[in-house]
């Protein structure tokens, strides 16, 4: 108990002595606390205290403090005023119409004092228990129960292969592969056309000279090459060309000369 400024035996004993009243109000935790200390001085069960005597003690105490020119906090004065009213009401002949009656007010005060006293005693008993660090001791440096987070890395084979593909793609020397387009060269077209001219005797459309199975880009290439070949053969005087109008089919036949 040495750590506690609480001392329940001392306070009532001090209150009995007149000089104890010289104490500053700072010794009390408010007017109710002071009243409780004074009530304890009556040395009877709180249920049997004389409220009138208690009121007189309190008022005397406050009067003395003021006579000594000590500062008295407002809440102590408010309590004093209320108790002075209670005192006069208790002393005057009972007025049955008064509500609440002075007896009821006195009962309330008594109940409050009982409750405060009960909690004060409970606090003392609580603090007197076997407390950790004072009466009972724990292990000062327990190992502690730890939870260790273990990182589990995750990746799939797919992730791995995609990553490798990206590395390869990013770092391989960039080579522009020009796709080898199927073409019919001018030489091939000339050769072909020369042979075909000998077979076809009448006017025939240029496209008729092309192999039937050429289609797609190969056919376009063949048309272009054959056109150039036809112009070349015409220049050499070996074919005649005719066209009915712009963008009309081009006809050719072996030169009549």
């Amino acid at each position: 108990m040495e750590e506690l400024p609480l001392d329940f035996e001392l306070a009532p004993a001090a209150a009995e002595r007149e000089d104890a009243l010289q104490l500053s109000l700072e010794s009390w935790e408010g007017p109710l606390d002071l009243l409780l200390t004074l009530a304890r001085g009556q040395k009877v069960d709180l249920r049997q205290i004389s409220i009138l005597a208690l009121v007189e003690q309190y008022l005397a105490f406050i009067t003395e403090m003021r006579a000594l020119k000590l500062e008295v906090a407002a809440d102590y004065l408010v309590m004093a005023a209320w108790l002075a009213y209670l005192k006069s009401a208790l002393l005057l002949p009972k007025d049955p119409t008064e509500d609440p009656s002075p007896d009821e007010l006195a009962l309330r005060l008594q109940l409050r004092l009982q409750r405060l006293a009960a909690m004060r005693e409970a606090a003392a008993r609580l603090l007197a228990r076997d407390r950790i660090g004072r009466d009972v001791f724990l292990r000062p440096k327990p190992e502690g129960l730890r939870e260790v987070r273990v990182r589990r890395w995750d990746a799939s084979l797919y992730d791995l292969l995609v990553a490798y593909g990206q590395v390869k793609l990013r770092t391989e020397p960039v080579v522009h592969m020009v796709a080898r387009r199927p073409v019919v060269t001018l030489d091939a077209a000339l050769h072909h056309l020369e042979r075909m001219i000998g077979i076809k005797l009448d006017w025939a459309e240029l496209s008729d000279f092309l192999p039937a199975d050429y289609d797609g880009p190969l056919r376009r290439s063949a048309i272009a090459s054959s056109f150039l070949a036809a112009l070349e053969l015409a220049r050499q005087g070996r074919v005649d060309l005719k066209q009915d109008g712009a963008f009309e089919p081009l006809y050719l036949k072996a030169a009549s000369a």
Partner: protein
Amino acid sequence: MTPIDDRERAIEAMLFASDEPLDPRQLAGRLGDESTPGEVRAIIQAIAARHAGSGIELVERGGHWHFQTPADLAHLLRRERDDPRKLSRAASEVLAIVAYHEPVSRAEIEAIRGVQTSKGTLDVLMEAEWIAPAGRREVPGRPLIYRTTDAFLQHFGLSSRKDLPGIEDLRAAGLLDPVDLAFEEAMGELDLVKDGEEA
């Protein structure tokens, strides 16, 4: 001596090594086998019984268990440098009021003490982790209410709130009831007595 069973060894080691009290559920979880909290509780009690009367005891505080030294050996273990938290008179009263009345609002604490509670008083108790806010009271103003914590039970060596010294007597005497309620009851009794006299 009969050899100690593996689970009992494991639970004893966990309680010994832990830096905070453990409950059967936490211990069962850490065991990682199929043990139920109920089984663990029985084992804890066996361990506590095995240590009874020795220099180390296993105690329950609010459903959690921890090892500590027996109180009667305090004189051998207390050292000058040990400086347990000193509580002001106001703080100790407020702590008692919270413990015996919980959950309780600041206004209710003040009604009992008849004096305003300085902010610092509640702070000290919260810093010590002996009290904690426990929501709000559903009345006008919705005041914050406070309760005591497991750390409070541990520090003051209480297995549960029922162990608070004298709480049953205080409750039976109506000293944990508010003044208004006690007043009405007292007046009711008086009326009854009066009626009885008049009859």
